[in-house]
């Protein structure tokens, strides 16, 4: 099975929530959310994004939510991440078009050739080796957090170590993994 999808979208699953009045909480905290979106770099689109959120909340009738405010913040954050992602993708496509001198661009996600599959497996192996080299605890912590989507507090309890230790392990693993990914992408 696949690991948790990026940006913890299951937090948006309404079935896990219990309290009431998501819309009311939204209205109460509108200024704070607006401030967050501005800080997040939404600029003059901030108001529009809030409006989008409001429409979504109303249309979806999400029902009661246990921690409504963090839920709303996360929703806003995910909107920004989506924006950033599609902007990056568009940029890249335009660049590819320019470089391709008007040729027909295939959708890169369409099908994966066998060679690519081999490279993919090789990369998985390489990533596993890098993770292993950081030591068993770092590997375990990273796996629990990033692949299985478990929170840091829970991981600390499971391992009987402090929260700070878990944080440090994660920083270490992330640094190594992101550096590896960047190296692979430039190859």
């Amino acid at each position, binding site marked *: *099975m696949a*690991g948790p999808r990026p*940006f913890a979208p299951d937090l948006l699953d309404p079935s*896990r929530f219990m309290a009431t009045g998501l819309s009311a909480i939204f209205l109460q905290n509108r200024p704070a959310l607006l401030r967050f979106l501005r800080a997040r770099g939404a600029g003059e689109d901030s108001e529009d994004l809030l409006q989008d959120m409001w429409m979504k909340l109303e249309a979806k009738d999400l029902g009661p939510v246990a921690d409504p405010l963090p839920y709303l913040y996360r929703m806003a954050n995910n909107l920004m991440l989506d924006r950033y992602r599609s902007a990056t993708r568009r940029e890249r496509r335009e660049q590819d078009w320019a470089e391709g001198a008007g040729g027909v661009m295939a959708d890169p996600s369409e099908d994966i050739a066998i060679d690519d599959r081999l490279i993919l497996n090789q990369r998985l192996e390489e990533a596993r080796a890098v993770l292993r080299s950081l030591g068993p605890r770092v590997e*375990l912590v990273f796996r629990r957090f990033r692949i299985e989507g*478990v929170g840091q507090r829970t991981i600390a309890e499971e*391992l009987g170590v402090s929260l700070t230790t878990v944080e440090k392990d994660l*920083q270490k693993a992330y640094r190594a993994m992101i550096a*590896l*990914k960047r190296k692979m992408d430039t190859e």
Partner: protein
Amino acid sequence: MNEEALGWVIRTRDPEFADWEAFTQWLEADSGHAAAYDALMMADAGLADILPDGAATIAAPANDPGQRGWRPVRWRGSWIAAGAVAAVLVAAISIGVMNRADIYSVTTKPGETRTIALDDGTRVEMNGGTTMRFDRHDSRFAALDSGEAAFMVRHDGSKPFRVTVGDAVFEDAGTVFNIVHSGHATRIGVSEGKVIYNPEAEAIALPAGRALSDDESGLRVMDIAADAVASWRHGRLTYANVPVTQISADIARSLGVRLTATPGAGTMRFTGTIRLDRDPERFFAGAAPLMGLTAVKQGDGWLLKEGDGPPR
């Protein structure tokens, strides 16, 4: 790499994260922060391409607050024969003298068990096909070289009991636990008290109801039902989603039979309890269908293959 931004990526990715106000303040502190955060969040998402999918561990819905999020699967509780006492009486135990005079080794054959009582009141129950080393002058030391053993340790805080397994060390903190060691894989389950894994390195604490496994796919900790720990002492094999290859190794060790599984059968997984039986014919007649498999006698051994049940 922007360390602060990385810190926020990790924090906001935590399903329990709630301090969005502090995050807002950090973003406001510098107009470059949001871009650094976005870039690292993208990098984080990109990691999905090079990470294993975690299939080996079967996670429950990650954010389900009702559970701890992780129903374990890899751990296997162990089992053994109802005739354990009889087996001890007839067991041909080889006690070899190691190069150091006070270290001695004890080996049980497949299908045999043996209880070792150490001077401090600690008891070690060895399953079949197991080799261990002990120290005549240090009753707080044991080494599990291969096989499986259950430990009932008399706790002494001033002098902890330590089991070495390959390069790893398990240190008790007043404890009943079970260890299996085969090839490069080690599994431990704790049913009472607490065990510390590698106290001088990782120092992972395993309280009762927790298990740890270390094999080619990495180190994991998980839950285990306390009564599944060392259930072999009660003539049972208890499993939660365990591959048949592992189960057949346990059966072979417990009953003293040669047992192989076809590749297809070996990758299947089983959840449930298998009652052990000294009579292999009777045992396989009951156990194989339970696993959805068929057992056939081949020469002096047995073969587990995919069942003759309805085609899937």
